[in-house]
């Protein structure tokens, strides 16, 4: 290894020649990782900018969330965690927590209470799905359809089960290329009661039943993996109906004026939020905790909803949700959490999926490949 070091030193020294003593003032910097696009933009406007103004700390926005799980694990194995805070979906937060890659938090001391004094733990309630997870928004995987392709004399589709109804609504559909939500929808629309969905899915017969239901539309379904795909397909008229994240549908319908309608029934709620990487030095940890305390308080979460139609994760933020920052329209009716949107909803069952994801994923991919 001595050789390695000598070589590295030579390379490094050769490289330093070009830089004149550029050791920076790192003390007041923080790298926050998120998804990019409109979502990052909403966080920058609602959290980062006011925080930077208030404290003078510089926030660097890294758009690596899609690789976050793998990169965090690699960083921790290499002993070089360069991120201070990471935006991930709840399922990933659970995985990171299980792997010991994310820091466990204590809502009582790390999160701000609601303005009326309700404790953070109560204000977030069920949203605290993992010991490491700091919820930010509720989004949903729901359905959009082409309003100009609804057959005449038929009601517009209302939700997930219309996807399986090829007779009433012919045309292509698009679904996410992984088992989560699709398996649940298949069973729900095949007459299984919601309470029994997961116990059914644990059995071979239940899985076979779900796949049989999906088989009925397999020939007419496109599978997306990047979340921008279903929206592009809807805009092109390539598919009649597609599952997509509600915020993207909102943006296509309201901001970009496409002939797309929402079908909310049996939408699946999902959570997105922060995790703090494990193993941060004390000074960095203190800085991140201060940011988290600020950025997840009641007002900030409500502010984010001005820029994107995702519901704040705190109960106390909901009444504060106001109007769209540019368009001036009321945001509340576009929120997945608006009760009048959907008759039935369910929440991604993270714990169940943490156990069965690997197995069902293999089966789902095998099914797709057939």
């Amino acid at each position, binding site marked *: 290894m001595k050789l390695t070091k000598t070589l590295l030193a030579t390379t490094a020294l050769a490289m330093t020649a070009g830089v004149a003593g550029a050791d920076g003032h790192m003390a007041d910097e923080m790298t926050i990782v998120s998804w990019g696009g409109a979502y990052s933009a909403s966080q920058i406007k609602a959290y980062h900018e006011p925080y930077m103004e208030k404290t003078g700390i510089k926030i660097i926005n890294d758009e690596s969330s899609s690789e976050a799980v793998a990169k965090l694990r690699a960083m921790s194995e290499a002993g070089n965690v360069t991120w201070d805070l990471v935006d991930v979906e709840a399922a990933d937060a659970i995985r990171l927590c299980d792997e010991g890659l994310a820091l466990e938090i204590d809502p009582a001391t790390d999160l701000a209470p609601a303005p009326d004094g309700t404790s953070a733990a109560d204000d977030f309630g069920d949203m605290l799905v993992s010991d490491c997870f700091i919820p930010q928004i509720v989004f949903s995987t729901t359905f959009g359809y082409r309003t100009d392709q609804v057959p005449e004399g038929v009601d517009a589709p209302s939700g997930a089960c219309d996807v399986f109804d090829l007779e009433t609504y012919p045309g292509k559909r698009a679904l996410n290329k992984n088992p989560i939500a699709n398996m649940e929808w298949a069973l729900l629309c095949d007459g299984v009661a919601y309470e029994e969905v997961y116990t059914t899915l644990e059995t071979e017969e239940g899985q076979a039943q779900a796949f049989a239901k999906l088989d009925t539309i397999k020939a007419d379904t496109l599978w997306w993996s990047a979340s921008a795909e279903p929206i592009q397909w809807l805009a092109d008229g*390539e598919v009649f109906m597609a599952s997509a994240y509600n915020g993207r549908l909102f943006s296509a319908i309201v901001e970009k004026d496409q002939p797309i309608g929402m079908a909310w029934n049996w939408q699946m709620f999902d959570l997105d939020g922060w995790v703090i990487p494990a193993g941060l030095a004390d000074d960095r940890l203190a800085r991140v905790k201060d940011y988290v305390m600020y950025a997840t308080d009641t007002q900030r979460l409500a502010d984010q909803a001005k820029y994107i139609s995702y519901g704040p994760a705190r109960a106390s933020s909901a009444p504060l949700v106001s109007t769209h920052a540019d368009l001036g329209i009321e945001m509340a009716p576009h929120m997945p959490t608006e009760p009048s949107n959907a008759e039935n909803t369910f929440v991604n069952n993270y714990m169940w999926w943490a156990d069965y994801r690997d197995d069902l994923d293999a*089966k789902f991919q095998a099914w797709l490949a057939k």
Partner: protein
Amino acid sequence: MTDTTAHDNSGPVLAADGKPLKVSLARALRRQKIRALLLIAPLLLFVLITFIVPIGDMLFRSVENQIVQETLPKTVVALQEWDSEAGTVPEEPVFAALAADMKIAVAEKTHTRLGTRLNYEMNGISSLFRKSGRGVKKWDLANDGPFKDKFIALDKKWADPEVWVTIKANSPKYTPGYFLNAVDMQVSPDGIEARPENQQIYVTLFKRTLMMSLMITGSCILLGYPIAWILANLPMRQANLLMILVLLPFWTSLLVRTSAWKVLLQQQGVINDLLVWIGLVDDANRLVMINNATGTIIAMTHILLPFMILPLYSVMQTIPETYLRAAKSLGATNWTAFWRVYFPQSIPGIGAGSILVFILAIGYYITPELVGGTKGVFISNRIAFHISTSLNWGLAAALGAILLAAVLILYYAYDKIVGIDNVKLG
């Protein structure tokens, strides 16, 4: 080097400096070798250290399995006494060892990581460890025994012998499990067997990757050959201008080209629109050319075509035009002249292009992911999935190792047959 000393009885032939010529030549040769190696050394070290060693380290994960022994050292020892085929749950000593191990693991937060690892082998172990961890945290090891019933009270899965079979089976430091999984096999109490049919996926994907890479290589030969021919037989200036057309797509971002193919090929896309407008295709029966194997083949043929054209072109440039004329003047038809005289000479070019295209195709994943739908994705897509989403790096490494082995065999065969020096990129 011929032996210059043997036949002369006046002693060894001397070089100018008075030393025997043989020694002198050997020294010159050695110096030449050293000089060559010195020239190669910086790059060789650079590639070895920054590439080969890290990749080897990564691939080593496919057999590495320290985690069970490290997290549950006492339990693994205690389990050695237990007969995994008896179909019974181990006795109290094993549970006491487990309690002691878990206590430490919970403090270090490694029990959940072990749960994730064992969950690859048996569904539900992940939550079993997560849940048990919370319980064990509150126990007092010295006074709270016996632990068997306490564990079963925490989660009744501890009474399932299968859990223990899984822990015992995975306790060795190295495991063939990932490699078996990568070829759709598994270890069961009865030995190695095929996975249930509804979980078999990797062999299909390997086969598909090979088949589709072959098809892509084939279509690259079909499309690349005429282009290389015309480039090689046009005057230099014209050929170079046309060459820009070949290189231009090569220089356009892969992501952008892939998106462009989506715009062109989808059912409401440009090509279908044109066909409907001309009347060749009925509006209701638009062609499905993307989100399936066809889409992957078209987009990847396009992306890899320059890698076929360039080596073909450089080989064809060296084939004298006079050979064809000679063949024809000897009475060969155009076809015979081409097939018996020109084509055999261009085979090294086809070889070089094919190996390049095939090797590059086999490892692609972004393009198949975007245009492949369900029938057009490759094994690399699963490798990427296991690395960035499921975190099952052992399996990803095993799949990668198999893929790499296939490529290396090809590379070796190619080097034997054609020689890697003969690859030219224009």
